[in-house]
């Protein structure tokens, strides 16, 4: 374990014990790590989604967090934080204003307002937990759902076999916003995740974005104890490469010289169990193409960094 992760793990847990996340939920783990890293001088926005649903914002007269926490709307997480931050700046207060939002609130409904906040350079830290759909309401499709995936709104039947469009390459969409700090991270690589959150915090101003892929045991169909392993396979197959962009310079944090074939990842999830070889090959083709594009951006702007963990 790295020194940083070790040190972060000793800090106060700012999320209440006993929130009602599903067994094996790696989003809860991500949130606890993120908030331990950022510390108590923070306010936390959790739009409707899994982490709101499991009680982090509280219920009735109770709360699920030890920092000020609130529900933004599904589609205004970023600007609500922008406004709070503007007021803190007027008062000379250095408060982390933090979004912890699912892909529905980020890639779908919240995208316009988040992109606006990013363009303005509003000083917020935005973390997207991407579990590829509206998981707390029964797994409806989002723009971030992978192609071929069964969802409750893209069911598998005689005529159709799951979602018909590829997953939006949303980390790249945010990379193209030219942010002072942007990263793709994974809960399977906690040292890397914590380092990125700390780095985002240390950037003095501007919009900072971290995209975390969080495979969902209940929704995607794998057992709770496979939660981290499936997340790791997404990185090892280059389905979700880990990278950073700092002021336009791309860095690949865990370069995968010979990525595993994507079927090693897809085959672990029941939501893909109906895919034919041809359909799997189609996903492989897009994964390869996107990884080549990322490598080209890295070689064109930044540098490879040797793996430091795991």
């Amino acid at each position: 374990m790295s020194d940083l992760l070790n040190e972060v793990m000793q800090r106060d847990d700012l999320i209440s014990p006993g929130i009602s996340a599903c067994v094996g939920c790696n989003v809860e783990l991500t949130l606890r790590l993120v908030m331990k890293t950022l510390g108590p001088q923070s306010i936390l926005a959790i739009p409707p989604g899994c982490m709101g649903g499991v009680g982090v914002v509280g219920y009735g007269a109770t709360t699920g967090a030890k920092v000020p926490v609130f529900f933004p709307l599904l589609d205004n997480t970023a600007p609500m934080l922008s406004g709070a931050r503007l007021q803190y700046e007027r008062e000379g207060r250095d408060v982390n204003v933090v979004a912890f939002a699912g892909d529905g609130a980020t890639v779908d409904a919240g995208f316009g307002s988040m992109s606006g906040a990013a363009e303005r350079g509003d000083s917020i830290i935005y973390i997207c937990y991407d579990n590829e759909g509206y998981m707390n309401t029964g797994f409806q499709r989002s723009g971030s759902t992978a192609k071929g995936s069964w969802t409750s709104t893209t069911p598998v039947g005689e005529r159709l076999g799951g979602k018909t469009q590829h997953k939006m390459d949303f980390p790249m969409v945010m990379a193209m916003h030219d942010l002072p700090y942007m990263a793709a991270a994974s809960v399977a690589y906690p040292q890397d995740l914590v380092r990125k959150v700390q780095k985002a915090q240390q950037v003095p101003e501007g919009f900072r974005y971290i995209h975390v892929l969080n495979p969902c045991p209940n929704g995607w169909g794998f057992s709770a104890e496979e939660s981290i392993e499936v997340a790791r396979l997404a990185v090892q197959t280059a389905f979700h490469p880990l990278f950073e962009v700092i002021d336009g310079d791309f860095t690949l944090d865990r370069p995968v010289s010979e990525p595993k074939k994507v079927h090693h990842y897809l085959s672990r999830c029941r939501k893909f169990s109906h895919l034919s070889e041809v359909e799997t090959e189609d996903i492989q083709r897009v994964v390869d193409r996107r990884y080549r594009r990322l490598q080209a951006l890295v070689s064109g702007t930044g540098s490879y960094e040797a793996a430091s963990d795991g």
Partner: protein
Amino acid sequence: MNRIKVVNGNEAAALAVKMSSPDVIAAYPITPQSQLVEYLGQYVADDELDASMSEVESEHSAMSILQGASLAGGRTFTATSSQGLALMYEPYFRTPTLRLPVVMAIVNREMISPQTVWGGPQDSLTLRDAGWIQIYVESNQEIFDAIVQAFRIAEDEDILLPVNVCYDGFYLSHLTEPIELPPADDVAEFLPPYEPDHILLDPDDVMSVDPLTPGHLLMEYRRRHMEAQQRALQVIPQVDEEYAGLTGRSWGGLTYSYRMQDAEVALVTLGSMTGAARVAVDNLRDEGRKVGLLKIRVLRPFPATEVLCALQDKRAYAVIDRNVSFGWGSGILHTEVRAALSGKNIPSLNYIGGLGGEDLTVQMLQDAINELVQLDCEAVDAPCRWLHNPQRSGDR
């Protein structure tokens, strides 16, 4: 010392905002509101206004930024019109239900379709039940005065609700009139700093804001919100009176009566049409008609008692609506006024006119009064009448 300045309605609003010293302004430009945002931007650029200004990508985000700023303890302002207000509806409803004292000018503009950019308060009237206080004004001076008053009303610890100051697009926003500006120090004294503790995001005083709320608590929130609206019926006239002590100008608080004392019939108006209605009343008074004028200044909370008192001894009244209430076959103001007079069997007429920026002329209003004077009691349930400008009827 008071200063006289010749300004259009948007500049009157901007000057009032400047004197009210908001912390955060977020706005998106839309015709006919855009100048107001431009004036505010210029004040900030010239260091005449110490506010944080955010030029957002939509009205939805404008209101969202103000919610965040207000939750962090700031005084906030924005302005919009028609489609912008419609886009803003989601956070619009949430601002009063979070009890955030945001002030927003609505430069009234007709709703599409058909495609239009001209005036009419259909935009804000349609949202009258969303929990905001709504004040409708008739002149540029009243725009200025009402915005200063709005911050005071919104932040009153017995109210804590957002306030809309609504003024007619183009007729006021782009019309130039002289207004009188009070000294900035007087306004600063009239508006003590906003120091919230009812709802606040502060890492040193941890609060969960708006957790998932079961129905029995939600009902408690709704009850208190409705009570705050009713308390505003007392607070708004008090604030108007105090402001009159400062400036010498009172706008009547909730409603404004003109030549109503001995009137047998009355016109009921909202917004800038009141100016023309006053002239129409004067003209027919000169002809011996006993007619008066009641301006509804505050639509929410609805001044039911004042409306009842003003109209209950009249033989008949006519409500002029620059809007429609689909499904009622009448205008919105007419249904509101009739509700306040339920139980009183007073005949009334409803006129709809001036939609989409069309003029409501003095002649039209005089014709309405003449019809009203001759009104037969059987006509109580007559359908609404449309005020058309015959000179425009040849347009294709």
